[in-house]
């Protein structure tokens, strides 16, 4: 089980801020494929990965990264702080 979190318009498209996901995905990209296949709202949120960023256990990472030992995955658009 892994905690998956969504922020900003990703959260709005999916309709919830976080969920527990049962997955055997080895990488972030595999997890994204599993989520996309679930329902159209996920497919809509993950339509263009170049518009998304991913953090693993609260550290910025990338879609090729391994999920081994990861407890928390977060998807969000590029950050707009400051």
């Amino acid at each position: 089980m892994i905690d998956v979190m969504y922020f900003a318009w990703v959260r709005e498209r999916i309709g919830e801020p976080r969920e527990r996901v049962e997955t055997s995905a080895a990488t972030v990209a595999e997890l994204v494929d599993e989520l996309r296949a679930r329902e159209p709202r996920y497919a809509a949120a993950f339509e263009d990965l170049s518009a998304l960023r991913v953090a693993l256990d609260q550290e910025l990472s990338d879609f090729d990264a391994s999920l081994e030992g990861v407890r928390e995955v977060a998807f969000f658009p590029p950050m707009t702080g400051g």
Partner: protein
Amino acid sequence: MKVRVQTEAFDQGAELSGFAQGRSDLGAVVSFTGIVRDEAGTLDRMEIEHYPGMTEKAIGAIVEEATRRWSLADCLVIHRHGPLRPGDQIMMVATASAHRVAAFEAAEFLMDYLKSRAPFWKKEITKDGSTDWVDAKVNDEDALKRWEE
């Protein structure tokens, strides 16, 4: 070094008078305050979302990197989240150093990285009720390139 992530307003005057006080080894304090802008006069409010936990870690890492690159006597970052109105203060950064070049450069470095590497997202809500997530700018990402070592 102090980092605060909060919904409440802050008093930049009070923050600055309390900043790096009582130090005689300082030659320069630089501060920057970011304010909600409404150039078109159509903005009702801005809502800033963040990623609790990661936000503090990311800002902490940016501050740590700044203190590694410049000799800073002190450093302050305050960033608000939640609903903000035009004219409200969003955030402030202050740096203190023996010399002004270090204080200016470190403040700019902090601002450039906070823009693109701290997990905040801004949503604009106009007076007619339409909403729009603010897109990251290519310029913001380019701004990081000048700091590459």
